[in-house]
Every structure is written in C-alpha cells, then in structure tokens.
C-alpha cells in the first residue's frame, strides 16, 4: 500500500480546543457514567484489579435498605475514583509487528493447535470449511475446560479444541503469567480469563487485540447479566466442573445477538450510546410523562429505547447507568421476540451497576405499531402490577401529546444523511461526547451502502480508534491517507471525532471541514443528544 501515508499532528491553532462542557453534546450532569470504558477496562486489566472493582455489588441492597432514608454515599464519586488514573492498555507482551508469521510465539503454538484438531477425526465440526472460514469465533469455557458456548457450531462437539485452549491458558498460568494473545498469520487468538470462566476470540477481522478483549469483556458481562456474579461464584465454588450450559438454556441467543451487534454497532467500540434523533420538545414530554406517572418507590431506572437507540432515561437520584449496562439492555430487547407479544417481568443483572443481584424489569412495547420498548427497572420483585399500571398511564399521556406518533415517525425515516451536514468531501463520521457517553453518526450511504463496504468502513474506524487509543503511543490527532479514503481522528478531553473523507482531500481542507462539522453538531445537539438528566 504505497499510496498510504499518515501524519500525526501536534494539535495546532486550527484545532481550537473547546472548553470542557462546551463541546457539542457535552454536559457535566449526564445520566450515564461517563468514564471512558475502553480505557477504564484497559486499566483494570493492567492493574489485575481486585474483584470489587470488577464486580461492583451491594448497590441493590443499598437501594432496598435506604427505603425512605436519605443521603446514601454518592455512587458517582465511587465510580469516578475508579475511572481516574492512568489509562493504559493491556500489557501485550510484544507489539504487533513482532507477532509476524515468523514470530516465535506463533511458531510454537500454531502447530499444537492444528495437531490436536487432526487427532479428532470424528469431531468433524472443526473440519467443515464453513466453520473454519468464519471470521470471528468466540468461545466461552469454564475454568475446568468445559464448553459453555461457541458462536459457531455446537459447543459440545468442540470439547477437544476447548480443552486445548484451557490447557494453553493453564500452562502459562502455572508460571505465574497470563496468556493474552497469539498471532498466527492473519488470525489473532485472544484470551480473557475471569473468575471461573475463560473467554477466547479467534479472529481474522480488523479488530485489534484490545478491541477483541473489550468484546470478550462484553460477552462476559452478558453471562453475568443472565446469572449474576454471585450465582456463578457460588456454583463453581461448590462444583468446580459444573456444566454451566444447564443454567444458560435459552440464553444462547443473547450471545449470538450481542456478537452480531458488536460487528457493526460502533457504540460498543466507543463505549457510548446512540440516541434517537428527536425534537427536544418531544423528548421532554416523554421524560415528563415518565416522571409523572412512574413516581414509585424503589423504581431505579425507566428506559425507553427503540432499534438500539435511546429515547429517554429517567433515573433515581444518585444512581447512574453505565453505557456498558445500557448496551446489554439494548441487546436483551433486540434479541427477545417474546417481549413483543406480552408484558414481561424479568430479572436482569446489570454488572456495572451491581453484579451481585438482579433488578426486576417490567418490559413492554408502547404499542403494537411502535418499535419503542419501555423498561421499568426496580429492586422490588413484587411490583409488576404497580408498574403495569404506571405503564398504561404513561402510554395514555404519550398518546394525548402525540408523542408515540412522533417517535414512530422518527423511527421510520432515515436518522439523518451526511448531505444534511453540507460539507463536501466528508463522507461519514462518528462523534462521541465524552462527558455524556453519547455518540452520533449519520446513516451509511453510497459508497458504503453494501454489506461488504460497510464492513470495510467499520474496519477502518476500528483501525483509527485503535491508533488513537494505542497504549504505547496514544494520539490526539491522526491524518491517514488511504487508497480509497482519507481518515481523520481527533481526541480531546471533551470529545472523540472520527471522520471519513474522499481520498483526495488535503489536510487544510479536512481540518476546515471538521471545524464546520463541530459547529453543525453544536447547532443540532438538542436533537442528537440527550442533554438533561431527569430524575424521579
């Protein structure tokens, strides 16, 4: 790729750094925990964090205990202290270039893997070309090496290969070390060990190793969301070789759908949430309706979502939601057909909120013809009928003010087109407001309208994101000229911007364009972002 070149810019005058809180979509009083999970996660990995950091627990009990009494310790403070500190990426033993095909690590391990595969002729699953040809495999196994989940193929037919994975990891663990990554040709084997569980990704996509680790961590959180950390811990302490699949029957769809979402949804990569663009007046009425009719003791969060976008979120004072938890909620709703037909009452664990217990969720769609789904999350398991009534009242008020119609309309049309931004040569962008953990980006249009082009552009974004957040050399600004397009990344304390231009754009034009873009986002911020944070 001789035509590619890159410049790393020192932030000059043309990059006027905006005052904090003043950047488009920025606010100090968000409702989402605004720590950058990507770096947060990396730091936790680095520090071999204590279980407490990784598994917050007790929040639910606190809410239950509080009942009417006031002044609990501020949850936000707690979280901020966790997220401060140096954000550095997981220690990879070597940098990428050292992991070439001739690298020692790859040489040693790759034959072992393939040899063991050949021994098991009867397990033909791994020989099928369609299985081998998958771009991203994900496996979950127990510490004892028992298969729990495989993204492709039946996990019980993969006992042998999972055994090899377990053996590799425990072999390295024996020498008081941990296995992070093996690179062999185009394939990355990435390992994430958690209490009692081992998660493995085998990928030949453009995801970087830290990004794959982040994805595995999401998968791990999905396990917690279904079972809670305390339950898993208890079970494996009693029986080391427990077959966890027994408890996960019917939950496979959550893993499948989560992995599919992560392959194209930038929200996971950015640790941010996309909001449904909506006139702020409508959004305010929606929030007001919820506040008015769901003022119920022990109700922690009321969340209205549609098509993996947030419409509004009302929270109990002093409690915040982490974007990673919200992503699990998106996944729960998009993976469950059964919510569409009936009002449901389901336990859900939000691992960043409290990994030790369940919240109880009243889940229902606003109306048969509207894709907006309302979730009312409480700590009281007997509140179904109370919440069911709240929901009817909320829906009634939303009808009265034509909000359901407005939401439906917002959902049927394109969110917005890049042409509305009016900047020639700017093809696409992703903008994340760091203080609110929200992001916005236009529809993918021509030339990115085909599945393969969309995959390619997402790969470019992953590359750009990886370069900007690299541990060894984090960047503030990157100008990357590729064969088919030019990329520009800009990270400040307030926002992250990733932009895609046509291939011939010059640096001054690109810089000029993104300054225009920031002005446009600022002008539209009321519609694109949720800027207030209503509480009960």
């Amino acid at each position, binding site marked *: 790729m001789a035509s590619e070149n890159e410049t790393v810019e020192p932030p000059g005058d043309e990059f006027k750094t905006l005052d904090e809180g003043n950047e488009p979509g920025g606010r100090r009083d968000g409702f989402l925990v605004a720590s950058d999970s990507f770096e947060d996660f990396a730091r936790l990995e680095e520090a071999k964090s204590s279980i407490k950091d990784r598994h917050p627990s007790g929040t639910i009990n606190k809410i239950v205990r509080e009942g009417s009494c006031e002044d609990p310790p501020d949850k936000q403070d707690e979280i901020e202290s966790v997220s401060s500190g140096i954000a550095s990426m997981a220690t990879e033993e070597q940098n990428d270039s050292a992991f070439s095909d001739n690298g020692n690590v790859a040489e040693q391990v790759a034959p072992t893997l393939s040899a063991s595969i050949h021994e098991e002729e009867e397990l033909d699953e791994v020989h099928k070309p369609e299985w081998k040809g998958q771009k991203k495999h994900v496996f979950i196994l127990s510490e004892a090496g028992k298969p729990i989940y495989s993204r492709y193929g*039946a996990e019980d037919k993969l006992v042998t290969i999972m055994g090899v994975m377990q053996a590799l990891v425990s072999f390295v663990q024996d020498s008081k070390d941990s296995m992070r990554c093996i690179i062999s040709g185009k394939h990355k084997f990435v390992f994430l060990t958690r209490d009692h569980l081992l998660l493995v990704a085998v990928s030949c996509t453009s995801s970087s190793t830290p990004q794959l680790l982040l994805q595995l961590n999401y998968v791990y959180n999905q396990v917690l969301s*279904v*079972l809670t950390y305390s*339950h898993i811990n208890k079970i494996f302490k009693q029986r080391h070789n427990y077959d966890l699949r*027994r*408890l*996960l*029957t*019917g*939950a*496979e*769809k959550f893993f*499948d759908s989560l992995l599919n979402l992560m392959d194209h949804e930038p929200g996971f990569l950015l640790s941010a949430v996309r909001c449904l663009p909506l006139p702020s007046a409508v959004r305010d009425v929606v929030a007001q309706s919820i506040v008015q009719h769901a003022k119920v003791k022990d109700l922690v969060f009321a969340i209205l979502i549609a098509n993996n976008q947030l419409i509004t979120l009302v929270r109990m004072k002093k409690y915040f939601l982490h974007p990673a938890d919200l992503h699990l909620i998106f996944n*729960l709703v998009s*993976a*469950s*057909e*059964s*919510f569409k*037909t*009936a*009002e*449901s*009452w*389901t*336990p859900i664990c939000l691992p960043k909120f409290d990994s030790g217990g*369940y919240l*109880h*969720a009243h889940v229902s769609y606003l109306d048969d013809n509207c894709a907006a789904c309302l979730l009312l999350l409480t700590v009281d*398991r*007997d509140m*179904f*009928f109370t919440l*069911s*009534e709240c929901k*009817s009242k909320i829906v009634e008020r939303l009808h009265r003010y034509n909000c359901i119609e407005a939401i439906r309309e917002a959902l049927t049309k394109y969110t917005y087109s890049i042409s509305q931004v009016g900047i020639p040569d700017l093809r696409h962008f992703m903008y994340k407001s760091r203080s609110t953990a929200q992001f916005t980006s236009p529809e993918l249009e021509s030339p990115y309208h085909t599945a393969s082009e969309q995959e390619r552009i997402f790969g470019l974004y992953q590359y750009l994101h990886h370069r900007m957040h690299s541990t060894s050399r984090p960047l503030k600004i990157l100008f990357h000229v590729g064969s088919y397009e030019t990329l520009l990344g800009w990270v400040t304390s307030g926002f992250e911007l990733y932009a895609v231009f046509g291939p011939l754009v010059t640096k001054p034009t690109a810089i000029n364009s993104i300054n225009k873009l920031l002005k446009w986002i600022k002008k539209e911020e009321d519609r694109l972002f949720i800027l207030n944070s209503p509480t009960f």
Partner: protein
Amino acid sequence: MGASRVDMKVVLLGKEYGGKTSLVERYLHDRFAGDTPYQNVRNYNATIGAAFGAKKVDIGDKVLTLGVWDTAGSERYEAMSRIYYRGAKAAIVCYDLTDRTSFERARFWVNELMKNEEGCKIYLCGTKKDLVISDKRTREVDYHMTTDYAEEIHAEVHETSSKTGENIFELFTKIAKDFASNPENIKKERDKDKETLDLYEDNKKKFGCCG
C-alpha cells in the same frame, strides 16, 4: 390490559421447551407459531423471565378475568420461581408427552407448589398431543401413569395440543369453573364487596405478613 383487575391468577410451570408459551398463545390469542421452536438447536423463542396476559372467561353465571403467567422453564429461574407462582389459585404444570424427563420436572414443580403454595390447585397438562397422535411411538409419558400420579396429589390430567387447539379452552374453562365453585373464593368475593375480586392484592398482603 387492566392487569390489576384480575380475579384469578393462573401460572404455568414446567421444563423448558415444554410448550408453555404455545399453550398460552393458543389460549390468549388463538394462534400457533408454525415453526416448532423446541426443535431448534438454538432456541430463539425461549421465554425470558415471565410473560403476563389476561383474558376474560365466561363460565355461564359470571365472567372472570384470568391473569395468566407464562414462566420461563430454564433452571436458572428456579430460585426466583416463587415470584411468579406466589398467590396463584391454579397452576398448570406442563410436560411434553414426547419427553420422559419433562415429567420428572413436572414432579419437581408439583412438590414445590405443595410445599409453598397451599391454596393453589394443580392441573397436570401433557402438551404436544398432536405429535403422539400422528406417531404413537413418540409417546414417552404413559397416560395411566400420569392419572395415577394425579390421584395421589389430588390433581387432574389434561392432554392438549396447542397446534390443533385440542383441550386448551376446555382446560382454562375448567380452571375458572373450579375456582368459582369453591365456596372459599366466593365468600371472599362477597366479603370484599367489590365489583371484582382482587386476589393478587389480597395474597400480597398475606405474604407480606408471614415473610
């Protein structure tokens, strides 16, 4: 649906893929999803938590509103199952006529109910009858064995097919009639002097006191 104006709580329990959701779908909406979900390797239709639906049933002299709880069969919900069957006046314990192990799970649920929920009448319900009619060899749960067991626990047996609708409406009507003919339930209705019964509230209070 006026969820709080429910006269009688009915809960469905049983092993996963045992056909509970299909039964409820047939009863509440008179429909059947052609794709038999239990034959999928990866079950994409498994119920999450529990789903609630209500339906009015006319039993001649009056109309009762049944609140039907369709619970998830997965073992992980076992510890929480009391949330769903607490205060139920009738439990439909489902088992798959083509799966012997599902009847073992049914026994488990019966024991659970008898231990924790005295006021709950039990109805054993064999599902997927259409399969055993079309091929007798697929039957794994013997009818007489189930009736013997039912006698022992003072329950009754219904064999149903959600695909054809066989025995479904009959089952729910029977449940409603049994409820209405129980003098205890009628007495409560008179005592409360309300237009409709609110048994859920009633039971909630009762359980609130004894923990």
